[in-house]
């Protein structure tokens, strides 16, 4: 059934590359929301054959949280902080995209060498999952705004969840729901902290949080 989900996987890769090149925060939030919805659809397509209820529940939860609730929280934080302007990243956008392409090549190579004991729904699934995970890590490290780091964390989590979908036979439903819940609370708590940081400092640049050191 690779032909069904391959377009979605390709779309995930495109979203990652766009995220690496996006400078406007609102666009980043929107892209991460799109990624969340794609992930929900992916879960639905991969799992619906053998466990419809579970697939619908998880896909619904994922789309609701990552496609609607998180973006709203983020937008609220953005509006509150009144920042729409371009970010000033540690790594420039063009270079980020080029590095992204490099990571993509690397993950395809690694994905080809990793043999899954169970046949995956698509041979693209593992490389895409790893690429998304790496993109998330890269965003956390290479961007300055606290809010982009939260977005990076979400992308990282999306990558890992994609990997989980690749082997969805293994993790029972309650654990997946637990994961979803934890991510939800994490974003909520991070949102509150961002709110407090803004009130205290009038900025949400994580690189200016540097008073604690040895």
């Amino acid at each position: 059934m690779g032909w069904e989900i391959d377009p979605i996987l390709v779309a995930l890769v495109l979203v990652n590359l766009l995220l690496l090149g996006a400078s406007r925060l609102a666009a980043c939030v929107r892209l991460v929301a799109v990624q969340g919805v794609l992930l929900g659809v992916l879960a639905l397509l991969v799992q619906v054959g053998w466990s419809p209820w579970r697939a619908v529940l998880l896909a619904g939860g994922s789309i609701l949280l990552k496609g609607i609730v998180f973006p709203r929280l983020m937008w609220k934080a953005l509006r509150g902080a009144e920042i729409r302007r371009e970010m000033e990243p540690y790594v420039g956008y063009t270079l980020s995209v080029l590095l992204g392409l490099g990571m993509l090549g690397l993950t395809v190579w690694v994905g080809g060498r990793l043999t899954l004991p169970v046949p995956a729904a698509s041979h693209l699934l593992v490389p895409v999952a790893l690429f998304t995970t790496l993109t998330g890590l890269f965003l956390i490290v290479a961007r300055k705004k606290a809010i982009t780091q939260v977005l990076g964390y979400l992308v990282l989590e999306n990558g890992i969840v994609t990997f989980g979908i690749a082997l969805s036979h293994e993790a029972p439903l309650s654990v997946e729901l637990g994961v979803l819940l934890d991510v939800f609370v994490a974003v909520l708590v991070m949102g509150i902290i961002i709110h407090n940081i803004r009130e205290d400092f009038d900025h949400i640049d994580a690189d200016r949080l540097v008073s604690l050191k040895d």
Partner: protein
Amino acid sequence: MLLLVLLLPTVAGLAAFLVRADRTRRTLLVGTALGHLALVAAMWARPPAPAWNRWLDLDAVGLLFLSVTSLLFTVASFYAVGYLKREGHQAHRDFEEGRVFSDAPEARFVGCLLLFLASMTLVTVTQHLGLLWVAVEATTLASAPLISFHRHHRSLEATWKYLLICSVGIALALLGTFFVAVAAARPGGESASMLLADLMAEADLLQPGWLRAGFILLLVGYGTKMGLAPLHTWLPDAHAEAPSVASALLSGALLNCAFVGILRGQQLLGSAGLAAFGRDLLVVLGLVSMTFAAVFVIRQADFKRLLAYSSVEHMGIMALGVGLGGAATFGALLHAVNHSVVKGMLFMVSGNLLAAYRTKSTLAVRGAVRALPVSGVLWLVGLFAITGSPPFGTFLSELTILKGALDAGRWWVAAGYLALLGAVFAGMGRIMVRMAQGEPGEGVAVGQHEAWSAVLPAVVLLGLALLLGLWIPRGLAELLGAAGQVVGGAAWRV
């Protein structure tokens, strides 16, 4: 019974958010802690039945760490009540920068403390790798609001670092959990269970490559949370900026819980015949952590950071002990108990020093013994207890780990271990003795009266540390032996 021990702090924690009256809320905190401790004590007498399809099942490792957590939490809850009373509800002046800040609502602090206990309880009682992950992540989320209790920018910065670094680490642990699931998957495609017992029963069928990769990710993920260097960077900030009672729990209980995650991974490797792979990694990480701690302890200018780096050191010692195997595994588990008790006590005393001197600077604090007759002496005695001097329990456990290294014929590891212990002793000793000696400076009264709630919990913990050095109760020795065998050490008795 397992459900009860989970539900009690959860329900109490949620209720604490709603309670308006301070008195009621504080009574709820202490009452829940005592109830939790009583339930855990009952589990010593009669092992509880598994629950939720064996997802919750208490083995020796779980009981050991659950007991330590529960005991420390109970003692800390008395300290917390006194602390909250003294703190009051008014705004405070920041010691370091003179700005005025307010505290977060007390209901949130107490509620999060109890939810923190609930999540740590879940870590220790679960046998399911997925649920373990959920529980460890929950400990991060429940404890983050504790760190930002004082609402100033340094505590926010510490909380932000804590959340981000630990969340990324924990995300990698989730990937590791998935890798273990891949290792366990059958070609037929039937669903493999993520219960430890099931995984270990068919350990010889696990794919070694995926299992190794999974263990590395688990080690990195939970190691971040445990404070193993070089992934410890959140730890000194969080421990230094959190209120002292929260620091005591972070250091004495939370780090242990992350250690449980690593032990579960090692347990799995052991049953698959790959124990040596995990042990070598643990030895390296252990020695690296001790080195980082030794470097940062010497010339440390902040006494709460000093204690935090000492925690990095002790986590390194525990990882090293499990890595060496044999008798050292027993030593590492005993060391976890000793470290929790002593470090909890030291953080409480550091809170008293902070309240009296209104600074965290190691240079500005002088004459603690004269200014605070009880806390000052506790600080000085605590130095010897934490650095592994006889007759305290840490001496016994560190000696056991040394013996394990010598038994295994790993002379270089033993020599490095001793040298690093010596370096940390010298570094901490110089700073802490200087703080205790001499005359207190201007503005600090001599012979201050201290509230019982500020010193009695610390005295109790120090007494336990001394007791563990002189005599290990038979029940505890048996439990340590059983836990050691679970994670692949040899059975060994004191």
